[in-house]
């Protein structure tokens, strides 16, 4: 059975974005999610940064200070090996949650 983890959605979004982008700063992650989801999903800064710092504590992402394209200094986050494993697990889990939810919605 899929772990019933709807709150884990934010983690999944961040992990997936970093996996697509390779390495990105917080603001870039927000923009990426907005753009890819056609502005359907809007991640708030107040949730993003605590989540990023938590994932760094858990060793899923690592961070370093780099210069952006617009030559600003920013903190860039990237997936670690553990983070990639985590992403795979979460993705599989999420798909099952979605299946489950859909099954319930279709039930009439």
């Amino acid at each position, binding site marked *: 059975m899929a772990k019933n983890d709807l709150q884990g959605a934010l983690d999944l979004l961040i992990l997936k974005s970093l996996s697509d982008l390779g390495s990105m*700063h*917080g*603001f870039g992650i927000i*923009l990426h999610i907005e753009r890819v989801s056609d502005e359907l999903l809007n991640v*708030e*800064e*107040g949730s993003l*940064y*605590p989540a990023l*710092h*938590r994932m*760094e*504590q*858990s*060793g899923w992402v*690592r961070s370093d200070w780099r210069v952006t394209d*617009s030559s*600003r*200094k*920013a*903190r860039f986050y990237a997936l670690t090996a553990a983070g990639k494993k985590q992403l795979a697990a979460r993705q599989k889990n999420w798909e099952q949650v979605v299946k489950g939810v859909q099954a319930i919605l279709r039930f009439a």
Partner: protein
Amino acid sequence: MGIFRRIWALGNRSKLDREIEDELREHLRMRAEVNMAKGMNPEEAMRAARLRFGNPAMFKERVEEQDAALSFENLLRDVRYALRGFTKSPGFTAVAIIILALGIGANTAIFQLLDAVRLRSLPIQQPQELAELRIIDGNHGLGVGNGPYSHFTIPMWQEVRRHHDPFSGVFAWHQADVIIGRFNYGKHVQGLEVSGEFFNVLGIPPWQGRLIAPQDEAGCGLPSKVVASYSFWKTQMGGQPITPNTTILVEGRSVQVLGVTPPSFFGLVVGDRFDLAYPTCIPPNVRREVFNLSVMGRLKPGWDLARASQYFGALSPGLFESTAPTGYNADTVKQFKSFKLAAYPAGSGVSDLRTTYESSLQLLLAITGLVLLIACANLANLMLARASARQREMAIRMALGASRRRMLRQLLLESSLLAIGGAVLGVALAQPLSRLLVASLGTSQYTVHLAITTDWRVLLFAAVVATLTCIIFGTIPAMRGASADPIIALKSGERGIAGNRERFAFQRLMVITQIAVSMVLLVGALLFVRSYRNLMTLDPGLRESGIAIGYFGFDELKLKPENEAEFKRQLVEVVRNIPGVQNAAVTTNVPLSGSTWSHGVHVGAIEDGSRFTYADPHYFATMGIPLLSGRGFTDADTNKAPLVLIVNQAFVRKFIGTAEPIGQLVHVMPEPQYPARTYQIVGTIPDTKYNDLRADTQPIAFVPAAQLPVEAQGPWAAVMIASNTGPGVITAVRSTLESKYPGMILRFADFQQGIRDNLVGDRMMAMLSGFFGLLAALLVVVGLYGVLSYFITRRRNEIGIRIALGARRGQVIALVMWDTAAMLLIGIVLGVALALLAGRAATAMLFGLKPYDLATLAFATMLLAIIAVLASLLPALKASKLDPVAALRSE
């Protein structure tokens, strides 16, 4: 790993802080740039970016919280902040910690004692494997018992020594006094008679020399080889190295000291400490009815107590068949043969302290728990008052962005710090307290040796108690403090808005709790004090004061048994003629000393047991017991004359009823050394207490000492010596007997002291419950005074308005006193109900009192009422003297 980097960076907090700030700032700028690209002007763009973020301090805190190392450092910051707060109000801090230390210390001290008496394992190898064999339900008083740990006769032990499949090894032991030094000046020390396997099965290595082994059992009679305990070796033998030539004077003879046991080993009796161990011996003519050994074994792997009990249960019929004593009637022998053995755990040793004091200690633990509860209620009020005084501080911190969770954490941390401080001090306090308790259990004759150590159980207990107190006194005030609305708090200033009903209700509840619980404690204290007083003032029906007991042993005189009766008569005659001695009498049983002697008797159709004492003609005069009817004993009542008996009223009631007792025939049933006999009652005496003040009066029959069966005679005598010259008479008797009978063992004790010694448990309960009752009352005074003063400060305006509107002083005082009266009433009603419930636990410990003693309840109520009135009078007077102008202006 990130976490190590963080911990490494602990000292670099400012760097980490800056990183988070930088990250935030860069993010804001990027967002602002995007906003500007959408066409906003720079200021608007920055503002919109900030709005998305919310409170930056809160944001930072939330990010930091994810950082284990940083949140650890935050905790340290909170601790520093709390400590700073404590130093700012040292009075509050000191009171809180002292109250907690007293409460936790008292609880820990009692628990420590329980731990030492009950829970701790013996310092031997694999203590959990040790099991003791006992007859299920005991021997029902059959035969002759010899001390509290005597469950086996020698023949029974010999059987078990041969058949013990569940045990890898078995041993027998017995406690007995040993006299060291010369006879006259001999000193009694604690002896431990052990079978050859004892030290080997327990796994005790020698500290010096060697310990007793099976081959040492050969020689019989007086001990010829001994092993010293470490403390005896250190204190009595100077701690000199043991050589094959090391000897010591035991019972007047020089014996070899084989070795010394390790310092931790005290024997098997918790509360005692043996001095000398010596090998047991099997005498040629074994007395099969004497129970004097304890038998233990070490379970083989794969055997547990249940299986071992099964084995010994199956062994029992054959065992008791072959070891049955002779000389009893058929019923007694049948009863003996029906006994069954079982195995009981012995890993924590044996101790009659357990049966004597366990319920007292548990009750004391409950009492100290209640004291702690009162202390907690008191502290909760203190914390609440402190929290409302700090409302402004809390409000400012919240307005500046501190989260409610953070505030709650801060407040809980403060109470935890107090609890930790109290617990540390309490554990330190518990040490001397429990030592004091152990000392108070000792008597003039006997010292309790208990190693009081702070082991993990004690520490765990203290930690649990501290956590519980913290939860009780800290949580609600913290929740109240953290839920304060910053705007209201800032507006209304330090004093807040009066009539915050909910908060007052909590404080009233705390005061009511205190009153109810202290009612229980006061009732308990009064009950135990009165019970002790009842015991102390009880008239046992015989003279208590000015009586010395002399125990004389004259084995060295080598008398023939048939001459012993006459020798004892002469001996008492000598004692009686010593100046200062009013009277003296020899007896086989010292009353109220705990020891008993019974025979089965039948009078007419009634058959039952009666206590028996063999006393000389002067006994009743010496002990101040009047003769009710008939005659006393004379020197002519010897074994050559008709056998006569003097009985007490309980005997008459039980065996004779309303008929004339004088002239009745009493048949005594046979037992070893005491053949069947028929006595004629020649006199009656009033009821006297026999072995124990608490016990109901029992039937007692007195036989002239000279009519003691010759077989039962022995070279020892207990002589009751009445005098009015105080303890000086002992010196006189000692010096006279020393010169007249060199080689006689002399030992003296004070009769009344001995009786008091049996009441140490009652004394301890009376003193401790009294102390805790007073402490509870004191805490109620402090609590009530504090809360009322606080109420009045909060209601200054209201009282000011009342006075301004014409309320008289009396009315203001009444206003405050009504408050007290209401709390007092509810508290006392609750307290009485609780006291009645709790009283049932104490019933068995009370003497001459019922737990629902009306006078006690009334007295406790009155005491509490007086205390409450006194505690509230001062705040009430202060309120009535309030200057209305000043009170209203200060708003």
